[in-house]
Structures are given as structure tokens and as C-alpha cells.
């Protein structure tokens, strides 16, 4: 049975770890997006000046 057990453990572990990694990646990116959006909320009250100067 040790080959059978090893097969189940390896396959299920790979799928589980990949699933956890996916969930973690998504959470990290969702946080990055919400941080970026909240960071840009208080933005440009005054636009930058682009033009000719002396």
C-alpha cells in the first residue's frame, strides 16, 4: 500500500498547495488593486502644468 499512499499524498498535496497559492495570489493582488484605488482617490486636485515656460 505504500506506493498507493504515496501516490495519493503527492497528488493531493500538489493540488492543495497550488490551490492555496492561487487563493493567496488572488488575495494579494486584490489588496494591491484596492490599495492603488484608495491611494489615487485624493489625487489631482491641481493638475500639473505642462507647457512653455520662460
Amino acid at each position, binding site marked *: *500500500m505504500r*506506493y*498507493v499512499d*504515496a*501516490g*495519493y499524498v*503527492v*497528488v*493531493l498535496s*500538489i*493540488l492543495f498547495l*497550488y*490551490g492555496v497559492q*492561487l*487563493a493567496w*495570489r*488572488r488575495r494579494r*493582488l*486584490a489588496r*494591491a*488593486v*484596492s490599495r*492603488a*484605488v484608495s*491611494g*489615487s482617490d*485624493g*489625487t*489631482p*486636485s*491641481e*493638475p*500639473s*502644468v*505642462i*507647457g*512653455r*515656460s*520662460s
Partner: protein
Amino acid sequence: MSGSASFDSFSGRPSVTAPAIAPTPPPVQSARARMTERIIGVLALVGTAFTVWLGLWVTPPDKFQGNLVRLVYIHPGVAWVALYAAFGLATVSSLFYLWPRTRSLFWDRLAAASVEVGVVFNVCTLISGSIWGKPTWGVWWAWDARLTLTAVLLVLYLGYMALRRLPAEPEVRARRSAFVALFAAIDIPLVHFSVDWWNTLHQGATVLNANLTSKIHGSMAWTLLLGFVSLTLVFVWMLLVRYRIGVLEDWLDTNQLDLALAERQSEGTDREPGPGDGSAPVRVGVS
């Protein structure tokens, strides 16, 4: 970037003011999509747990293979997901991307997500097959047609993933990747028919053979079927999450520059400009 003409109070000359930077709205996942994803995730977990329970404790040992038959409840399932569900979907998505009428980055993201998940299942296929092969054939690996072509498939899709990491415009990357996915897909029918076309160590089709007559019976057949369904649900859940990651990554890539500029602008306008202070509005122009 369009600008509007205004009067520069410093120089008294007309100038062009940059408009407020407005990044595209962030991609929001609907409550319905989140609920669907959770339901699929729970079903996948429960189904997989049942498959393991039936496979390891309920089903009887095989007349010829003994307990090793228990590996068969997961090995064909992961192989089915990798070969047909994941890489098949990637192929169809790539075709849809290349077809001018259906061209959309949606198909590109779907193909990328499908390939990544498929590669994980392909690795599981090779490992579980190898663990079954050692006690059955006496070797961990044989340069058998089915095994070798499955390994080639893995290398091809790893190449696809590597190609996607090269810096390029989204459309260029999508087109290149779609062509590579179609090239890699040539190997899918080769893997499928390898057991018929060549004399291989790997057993022939047990469930999906030419006569559509299953050679597996009773509780073994039901456990195998449940394994197929559960692992497919695992794949669907992973695909949904991976697709969402692609959407978020693309949004950040597209808007990162705008957001950084907006941040700098807000920093510049939050502080009072002073002599020699770098916080004064940026002046770009020809003197």
C-alpha cells in the same frame, strides 16, 4: 493624452495643463460569481474527499493489480483534466483569440489560466503514473510512447508559460501565445492515440475505447467516475481563481503608471511649494 489650454500665472504665457489622471475602474467580481466559485470549490472538496474514501477504503482490490488499482481512481482523472479539459480549453481559447470576429483578451486570459492549471495537473499525471509504474513495471520511468509524449506536452506548455513572461504589449503577447498553444496542441491527439498507434507499455483505453464499452465494473467504475467529476470540479475552481488573477494583474499592469503619476501629482499639490522645493508643479516645455 489630451490637454487643455490655460494661462500660466508664472510666466504669463499660455500653457497646456494635463487633465486629472483617471485610471479605469478596478475589476469587481460580482456577488453571484463569488458564490458560484465557492459552491464549485466546496463541491470539489467534498467530491475529492469521497473519491479518496471510496478509493482507499471502500472499493475491493483488483484481481490482477491488487491494491495498486487504487491509484487508478486518481491517475486517469488528473490526466483527463490536463490533456482534454485544460489543454483542450487552451487550444479552443487560442483559436477564438486568433479568429478576428471573436478576438478578445478574455480568450487570451482564459488560455493562460487554463495552461497554468493544466501544467499542474500534467505534473500530477506524470508523478502518479510513475508511482504506479514502479511496482507494476519495475521502473519509475520508461521511454514509452504515451509517457514520453506526455512529458513532451509538459515541456511544450512550460514553454508557453515562459513565452508569456517575455515583456511585450498585451496584444503581441496574446497573438504569440495563441500560436504556440496551437502548436503545442498537436501533441494532444498524439498522446491520446499513442496507445493505439504504437506498441506501448501503457495500457490501452479502458473507459473511452473505440467501442465505448467500459472494461471496469461496479464500485470501481463509480469511484473512477466520481474521481473524474471531482477533479474536473477542482480544475474549474482553479481556473476561475487563476482567471481572476489574470484580470487583476492586467488591471495593475495597465494602470500602474497612471496611478503612480496620480500619486506624484497628489504629493505635489498636498505640500506648499517653496523656493528650491521639489514639490512645485512640474514644468515641462521649451524655453
